């Protein structure tokens, strides 16, 4: 579904991604580990098409199509969705305004209200400025809620567990799992083949206690250093830290 070949990216003429290779097939969710500053967020922003990230080499293929030149919203229309680590607060722009633009008429719909807004307790955030004054957990919830509305085929979650207390973590995990299902309502909830694909970037890996991922990759200094079983890699990182990876020169 997503294939990245030898991706090089510059920010202000400085190379920050140095030849990333990554493939995530249909129905698979991968985790992306790496210490702070390793390039995880840069990779995510580049997949999304943020203009300040300049691709100097390589390609990003989504369902076989090269998306290097597409705008952010064109990528979203193809089915890519993102939950950001630190989304901005936008003065005067209410969550309600954004939902009205994304789903005209839905916000007045009773089924929508009961089904989505009330179930995820998002009613209270509707008339607040987007992301304004939210706790870490609330920010993640709001991001996931917007993803659930868009129902993308491919989800990118940037540090969905950072700044979230343990009580909220379980709820966040449940929301991610629901968003990963192809359909929110109906029998497909139980169908393992009805799963969307995704990439979850996390440096603490605690979210993986609630969300199953099929494969893990470790990113170090702008490159994917190694890939493997998420549980095994998570254990290694937990017991030995990322220094273990730096010393281990296994490449994919």
């Amino acid at each position, binding site marked *: 579904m997503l294939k990245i070949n030898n991706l090089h990216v510059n920010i202000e003429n400085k190379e920050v991604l140095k030849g990333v290779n990554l493939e995530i097939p249909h129905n698979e969710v991968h985790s992306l580990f790496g210490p702070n500053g390793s390039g995880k967020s840069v990779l995510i922003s580049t997949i999304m098409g943020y203009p300040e990230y300049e691709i100097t080499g390589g390609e990003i293929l989504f369902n076989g199509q090269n998306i290097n030149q597409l705008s952010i919203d064109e990528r979203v229309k193809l089915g890519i969705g993102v939950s950001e680590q630190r989304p901005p607060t936008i003065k*005067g722009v209410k969550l309600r305004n954004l939902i009205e*633009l994304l789903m005209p008429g839905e916000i007045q719909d009773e089924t929508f209200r009961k089904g989505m807004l009330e179930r995820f307790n998002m009613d209270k955030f509707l008339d607040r400025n987007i992301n304004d004054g939210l706790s870490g957990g609330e920010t993640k919830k709001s991001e996931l809620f917007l993803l659930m509305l868009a129902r993308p085929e491919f989800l990118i979650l940037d540090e969905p567990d950072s700044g979230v207390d343990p009580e909220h973590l379980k709820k966040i995990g449940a929301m991610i799992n629901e968003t990963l299902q192809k359909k929110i309502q109906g029998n497909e909830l139980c169908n393992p083949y009805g799963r969307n694909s995704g990439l979850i970037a996390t440096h603490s890996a605690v979210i993986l206690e609630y969300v199953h991922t099929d494969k893990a990759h470790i990113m170090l200094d702008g490159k994917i250093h190694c890939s493997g079983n998420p549980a095994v890699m998570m254990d290694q990182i937990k017991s030995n830290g990322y220094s273990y990876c730096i010393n281990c020169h296994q490449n994919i």
Partner: protein
Amino acid sequence: MSDFLNKDNNIGKINIDYSEFSQIENETKAINSISELKEDEIETLHSVGINFQDYSDTGKFLMYGVDVFSLTPKIPGVEIIPLKAALLIYPEIKEKYYFKAVNKDQDEFTKTAFEKEQNGYFIHVKKNVKVKDPLHTALFMHREMSTMCIHNIVVLEEGAQLHLITGCASGCTIQGGLHIAVSELFVGKGAKLISTMIHNWGPDFVVQPRTATIVEKSGTFVSNYYSVKPPKVIQTNPFTHLKGKNSNAKYMTVIASLPDTYNDIGGTVLMEGENSGAELVARAVNHGGTVIQNGLLIGAAKNARAHVDCSGLMLSDRGYIEAIPGLRAVHPDARMSHEAAIGKIDIGEVNYLQSKGLDEMQAIALIVRGFLDIGIEVEGLEPELEKTIQEIAELSGHGEE
């Protein structure tokens, strides 16, 4: 360099040859009633918040060029009549209100209005009468390069309440004209006046409003000003005199400036009443013209409280925004503060909204809409104002020209 350091504060000023405009006329008969307004004229009036097709008891006033039409609401104690008629019916208006808030010798425009005023509205709300629905008044210019010179007087007696919407517009094919308007507003003891003014002008218009308001004890004056489509030049600095104890004034100004336009829109409040309060909030979105946000609050009484907030969004590399939030304390117990910020749209915010599925235009329009959302009091006219804000925001979403 000299352009940026102009000591005379003439930045972006546009010289106007006033002889280009026709002489002030007093007699025409372009239409015989409001029902003769054409489709496109009705639509233009809608764009400035005016709906004459509403057959409710709401009062109406239309000045169509020189012709005047008015309908007093079916509410006891409320009157809307053309000023010329009012001066004949109520001679005391001359003594009590006529050029009593605005100084007729203030400048060439007030002098012209005094000498040649065509008409205007006189609105009177009697003691303790609270008008629930807004009154709709419109000043409409339908002839190319004509001059409109009007004088309005609004009087709210003790405890009265009124929400007045004034739409000023030109016909959609009309390019230019001169609009001179003197408005004098009197807010009695404990009364509340909300005055919402929306402008939509042709590209070569020159607009020179002169407004002054006097607020008595515990009275409240709220002024909302929106410019949907700016004229070539507008210069106005409405003055409010908070005369009474516990009186309040609030100015909310929202303008979108187009290339080659000069928008000098200020506000001055003199707080002479003990414990009086004033707030000025101005927002400007610049697409290449000149915007001067000139706010001055004068604290001249014990416990006078004031705050000025001027913010501008630069959406073009042409033009200027100059924010001048002024405070003048002439009493030791006045408490005053100000803030001003000018910047461009944060690209991170645009990217974020695009990542949620909006295209770039929609994202910019939504951010501008948020920027312009300054909590204007909109009881009774929400749909119109909402549409106006949306129009200004969408203008931003579609680039500078």
